[in-house]
């Protein structure tokens, strides 16, 4: 009993903290809500620390939650990314015309959603986590109410997201009719114990398809990626940073647990689907990204492409691939939050700082920012010795070991294509002339976040072993459990 409560404690604390945040925000006299933001960051730190402290293997509360290594890894990742996004927002919000203190509590709730998704061992709980996260992010995307694009982003994200949730839930319901359970392990057991043939098998396939579609929307896999560019572009930059990193991590956390644990017996049927999705996703993302003039849109398509790389790892499905996906998510989080951080640091009212051309000659005016941005772009391309390179290396190696040679070939080709647009940004910053109206100086909080992200990106490249090791440990227990 004590253990049960203990392992649920991080979640309980996080929820209470979020409630506290709402109340504190209400009485906050400061219209910039710096205190609220810091409280949110501290709360995330506490949550992360507690989840490390109380980590335990067995599932608790009627097999609904497990605070295993996998969950702890994602908790740490989500809390770190959430804290980074909150710190980025401190200066950005007021300038973007967002004077809602609820911003931070919603972001906190979104992180809680990711935490639940990662820890859920029951499809219902996983769905609730997904909805908690999505609900908060829908609102965050549209929080700039005076901005029509922000409204469009929120509406589009909400409508498509709601559709995806409905499909996912329908898939879960069908799975339940076949297997009689929503607990991942039980589903897996029921699927492997009984041979489903004929119509039952068809229902099973439909169910699996619907579940995959539901998650596909959340991670923006082709062909369910259509919302991503518009939403990334329309949402406030800091929210986009959060969506591109933490939300994607949450989606993968749930997807991997579902596919690799509950649906493990259906591996044979799923593999080709995932293979195709991975190939199409990265190709389409990279090709379309080439033509973008808006940095945000470019990064949106790049994030679709990265979804494709990550799906390569999921397709492989081995222990090695799984842990490399976990590592990749960390590296991807660091470099993406850094890239969006640079945008948020330089954005000022009236000057979106969202077009690639806005960064012309950045190296002359803001050498440090330009340097960091270049670093993130190189890392996203996969140039050694940065985090992005190591992540790709491990994922592709794992895929090779799993026999997915052609997929890895496609992925490698894609990486080469992607260099064109990533390096285009670097060229614009270093070789174009700065425009007459120079960008304002970078904001302090954002600059710090960017610096930390840069350091982490480098560290993950030169010394990946600690993170990789914990990712491997985290993942090994998932497949066993």
């Amino acid at each position, binding site marked *: 009993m004590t253990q049960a409560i203990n392992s649920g404690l991080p979640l309980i604390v996080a929820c209470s903290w979020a409630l506290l945040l709402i109340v504190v925000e209400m009485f906050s006299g400061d219209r910039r809500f710096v205190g609220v933001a810091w409280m949110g960051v501290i709360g995330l730190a506490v949550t992360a620390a507690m989840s490390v402290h109380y980590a335990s293997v067995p599932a608790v509360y009627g097999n609904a939650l497990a605070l295993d290594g996998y969950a702890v890894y994602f908790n740490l990742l989500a809390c770190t990314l959430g804290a980074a996004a909150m710190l980025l927002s401190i200066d950005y919000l007021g300038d973007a015309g967002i004077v809602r203190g609820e911003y931070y509590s919603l972001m906190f709730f979104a992180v809680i959603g990711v935490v639940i998704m990662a820890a859920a061992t029951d499809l219902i709980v996983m769905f609730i986590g997904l909805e908690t996260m999505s609900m908060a992010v829908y609102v965050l995307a549209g929080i700039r109410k005076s901005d029509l694009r922000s409204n469009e982003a929120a509406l589009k994200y909400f409508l498509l997201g709601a559709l995806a949730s409905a499909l996912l839930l329908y898939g879960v319901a069908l799975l339940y009719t076949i297997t009689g359970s929503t607990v991942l392990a039980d589903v897996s057991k029921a699927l492997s114990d009984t041979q489903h043939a004929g119509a039952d098998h068809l229902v099973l396939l439909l169910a699996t398809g619907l579940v995959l579609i539901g998650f596909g929307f959340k991670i923006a896999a082709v062909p369910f990626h259509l919302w991503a560019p*518009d939403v990334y572009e329309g949402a406030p930059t800091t929210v986009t940073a959060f969506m591109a990193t933490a939300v994607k991590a949450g989606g993968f956390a749930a997807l991997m647990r579902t596919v690799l644990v509950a649906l493990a017996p259906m591996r044979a049927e799923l593999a080709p689907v995932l293979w195709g999705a991975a190939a199409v996703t990265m190709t389409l993302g990279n090709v379309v990204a080439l033509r973008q003039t808006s940095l945000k849109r470019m990064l949106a398509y790049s994030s679709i492409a990265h979804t494709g790389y990550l799906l390569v790892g999921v397709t492989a499905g081995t222990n090695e691939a799984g842990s490399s996906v976990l590592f990749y998510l960390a590296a991807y989080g660091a470099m993406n939050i850094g890239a969006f951080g640079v945008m948020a640091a330089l954005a000022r009212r009236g000057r979106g700082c969202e077009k690639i051309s806005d960064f012309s000659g950045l190296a002359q005016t803001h050498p440090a920012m330009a340097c960091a941005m270049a670093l993130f772009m190189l890392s996203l391309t996969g140039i050694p010795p940065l985090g992005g390179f190591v992540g790709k290396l491990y994922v592709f190696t794992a895929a090779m070991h799993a026999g997915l040679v052609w997929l890895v070939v496609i992925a490698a080709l894609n990486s080469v294509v992607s260099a064109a647009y990533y390096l285009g940004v670097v060229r614009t910053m270093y070789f174009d002339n700065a425009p007459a109206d120079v960008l304002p100086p970078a904001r302090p909080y954002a600059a710090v976040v960017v610096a930390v992200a840069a350091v982490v990106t480098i560290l993950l490249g030169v010394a990946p072993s600690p993170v990789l090791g914990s990712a491997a440990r985290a993942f090994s227990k998932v497949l066993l459990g």
Partner: protein
Amino acid sequence: MSLELEFADGRDVFATEDMVLNMGPQHPSTHGVLRFIIRADGEVMRSAKADVGYLHRSIEKIAEKVGWHGFMPYTDRVDYVAAMTTNQAWAMAAEVLGGVTVPRRGEYCRVIAAELGRICSHLLAAGAMGMDIGAITPFTHAVRERELINDLLEELCGARLTFNYMRIGGVAWDLPPGFGAKVLRFLDHFEPYVDELDDLLSGNKIYIERLANVAVVSRERAIAYNLVGPNLRASGVKYDIRKHLPYSVYPEFDFEVPIGEGRHGSVGDCWDRYIVRLHEMRQSARILRQAIDGLPEGPVIAKVPRNYKPAAGEVHVHVETPRGDQSWYVVADGTEYPYRVHIRTGSFAAMAMIEELSRGLMIADLVALIASFDIVAPEVDR
């Protein structure tokens, strides 16, 4: 894939549309035939435009055709809730033009009749106020008291609503025998009743919540909009024609001019307008007692030729009606018909202000606002 954010005709998808509501001409709470065009966002009004004129009967024009004496019954219809004071205004205008002096007893009779009429009108206003807020009982109680006054006035002039009591030069009939005693007996009964109404209605929590701080008219806005009478006094301006532009025998009486104090909210809110009327009833009762005590002997009407032809000239008289300063501008050209009559009424000024006040109020507040201004539709349109 881009979602269209505009409809084909260019409207924003996210724009909300105001609802246009037509309150009146047939609507239970518009106190006669009034019409408001309300633009509302849900229950909250963006504006309420008054559309007047449904009760226009060309009374001013009729005056030019029916002659000086003949116009008296028409004045009853200008404000049929308080016809006595309108009678008095017309009589005063004609007297000033013709240089007629009213006998003292005649003036006293006029004051007694006018003050009874004022109580009558305020009772109706207070009762209707409660009714519009949803309290149905005060109305029947107020009307019950009003009935007693109507009995008295019927005894005085034979009519219960459109009195046609006053004449140029005085009043039509002297007080009937024992009338003064009856009025005093009525007042003995009535003064406690006002206290009771005060107890039951004005202190009611819901009543206060509905009226306090609603549609606050500041002193400056009240003056700027030319509000008069109780509506003006509720905003804290001590201005009563009976005191400040004295006419008739009012200077001989001792009474106070109540003003709004903002006891439950801000000065000049709906509750203040209500309570000022309540206090005025008490003051009217005070005047009545003094008038009956000091009633002089003598004729009640001066000798005025049947064919009344005042000399050419113009006059502007002010009378304090229950709805405030009613000013009559009358031009005579030396014939037996007035050349031009114009009446400026309190309800009309109040009506003009509603559009400004209505912004941001709820629909239920509009009803309270109309009632608190004590708008009488015929007085607006004449």
